């Protein structure tokens, strides 16, 4: 197997996992934009997406096109409930307390998942059956195309949402200045609720598409949250497409490091890249200096 094929293989692997980091990072950004909170329970939304989908399609035997939207709706509801019961009551607390609340929520979600699904991993059948495809001497699974396609679709949809729809623009307005936004008649409370619900939904989609490739268990959340956070900060916290680019960079570099350098360092790579970029451009690749100075975190 030529070096080119090997590297191509690593890149494919990196793209796959990078897509997931991107979607988690996007989720971080949406909530951060609306509230400046870093939601460390973001990974748990991914986990719920995968596991609930397993329940609906494998246990209840719903077909894919029913299970998918149903799962997303359930997890979106979880995100909304989380905001209502845990975030909203603490809206006047310090930012640090709120971040700790998301951590406590992550522990709670994991406890619930362990209670319902146990500690075993679960899998989903790939969306389209069939073996892997060879491209340039490297192997790529059919499900990977679904993952990449879904990520692309999400990126397009969120860009349209924030750029073109009233609700989306209102949410962006909240992120710049909640006081001014509220004076303009924007219902800030509702925007925050929507941001959590939306992030939860995105996380769920990520969980559903990745489970056929890498299984899902109750404990998958925290690692994804850390890597997704890196992706978001790398791309510039608060900038939508930044998280996407950040996610792919982290994913590919991780995979290349594992393949070409030493697999033991894989987990640290995401953070090392982050530190490296932050040295040169502290607000992230696409972040803007002024905005990051104004934001509290």
């Amino acid at each position, binding site marked *: 197997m030529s070096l080119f094929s*090997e590297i191509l293989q690593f890149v494919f*692997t990196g793209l796959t996992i990078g897509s997931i980091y991107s979607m988690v990072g996007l989720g971080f950004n949406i909530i951060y934009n609306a509230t400046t909170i870093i939601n460390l329970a973001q990974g748990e939304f991914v986990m719920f997406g995968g596991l609930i989908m397993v329940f609906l399609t494998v246990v209840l035997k719903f077909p894919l096109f029913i299970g998918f939207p149903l799962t997303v709706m359930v997890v979106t509801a979880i995100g909304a409930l989380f905001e209502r019961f845990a975030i909203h009551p603490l809206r006047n607390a310090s930012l640090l307390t709120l971040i700790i609340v998301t951590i406590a929520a992550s522990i709670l979600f994991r406890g619930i998942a362990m209670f319902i699904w146990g500690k075993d*991993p679960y899998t989903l059948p790939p969306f389209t059956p069939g073996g892997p495809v060879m491209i340039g001497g490297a192997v790529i699974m059919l499900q990977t195309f679904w993952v990449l396609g879904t990520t692309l679709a999400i990126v397009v949809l969120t860009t349209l949402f924030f750029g073109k729809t009233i609700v989306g623009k209102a949410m962006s307005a909240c992120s710049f200045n909640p006081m001014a936004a509220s004076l303009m008649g924007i219902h800030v409370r509702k925007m925050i609720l929507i941001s959590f619900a939306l992030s939860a939904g995105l996380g769920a989609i990520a969980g559903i598409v*990745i489970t056929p490739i890498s299984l899902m268990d109750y404990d998958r959340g925290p690692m994804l949250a850390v890597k997704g956070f890196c992706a978001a900060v790398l791309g510039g916290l608060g900038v939508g497409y930044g998280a996407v680019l950040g996610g792919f960079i982290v994913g590919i570099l991780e*995979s290349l490091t594992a393949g070409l350098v030493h697999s*033991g360092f894989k987990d640290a790579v995401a953070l090392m890249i982050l530190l490296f970029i932050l040295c040169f451009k502290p607000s992230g690749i696409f972040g803007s200096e002024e905005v990051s100075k104004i934001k509290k975190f």
Partner: protein
Amino acid sequence: MKKSWIAFLTMVLCIVLISPGWAAYNIGFVASITGPASWLGEPEKNTALMLQEWINSAGGIRGVPIEIVIEDSKGMEADAVLTTKKLIERDNVLVVIGSSTTGESMAMVPICEQAGTPMISMAAALSIVTPEDEMKRMEASKTPWLEVPKKPRYWIFKVAPSDASSVEKIYIYCQAKKIKRVAIITVSAGYGVEGRRQLKRLAPKYGIEIVADELYGPKDTDMTAQLTKIKASPAQAVINWSVGPTQVIVTKNWNDLGMRGKIPLIQSHGFGSKGNIKLAGEAAEGVITPLGRVLYAEKVDPKNPQKPVVMKYKTEYEKRFKSDVSTFGGHAYDAIMMVADALKAVGPDKKGIRDYLETKIRNWPGTGGMYNMSPTDHTGFGADGFEMIEVVHGEWEFAK
């Protein structure tokens, strides 16, 4: 009205707190029931619950019921330390069985030694029963792969086969199949690190060359990068050493990369669970692994003295817990049954139990193998506890 409620509750509370354990033989049991090693702890705990019922419904031991006090170490040494102390002091256990992982067991060793309480670990590493200086002597020798420990720790025993035995079984198989060059891919967590150490240490003994040595993390979700490198190497077989979902992911990746038929996949004995075959699906066909007899009890030769033991354990476990039996649960079985035999013979005497374990467990059929404990060997058995098994049509079959 309120005051009498309070009085009643206080009384209940007092009774609960003060009540002495009804006379029973207390057996301490520490396992990683939650946390990263719960694949080990969960079946171990289930086995303990099942055996406690068996023994007590048969009238207990010498007419006295046993109480297996089960504690969760959560896979962390600090918790293993605390639970062991609690068991020895508050629950007055006669024996401590546990824990599921090497790290925790190592932390528990000094506590049990100080308290003069026999300990039977369900973890694999030789260093649990072997004192530091003895380990150093073996490592310093010119032929470390031929060394065996000669002076085990006085109070400490273990029932799980050491990774060395599993590796030896695999290498014997490789020799028979004329495989000289192997690739190894291991998880960078306790289990995998031990396995890797043994794989490297024992390779010269069987004339095997390790041509690729890849690693991955316990929470990784994709190993195609590492397997790609192995595919490109001159390896004739690839050996994976991990537990949990990563075994399944490696199997799937190996299959997707089209390595079947060219570079056979050999899994460690941690693969031994039907759940893994189900999750890996067709990818698991042809995968080879050394497994303890409890997993394929029906296929074991009726003349083998382990047969009745493993058959009974497998059928009862699967009936009661509606889930597949595993070798890890088997470790709990062996430990508890050994202690039961000791108690029957000598009664509630810590030193007596220890002496019994060391001297009377001879040709003792357990789920893991035929145990032969002695003053120089507190591990009991070696590679003979395993058979090489191949996955054929989703079932365990003897490998040819």
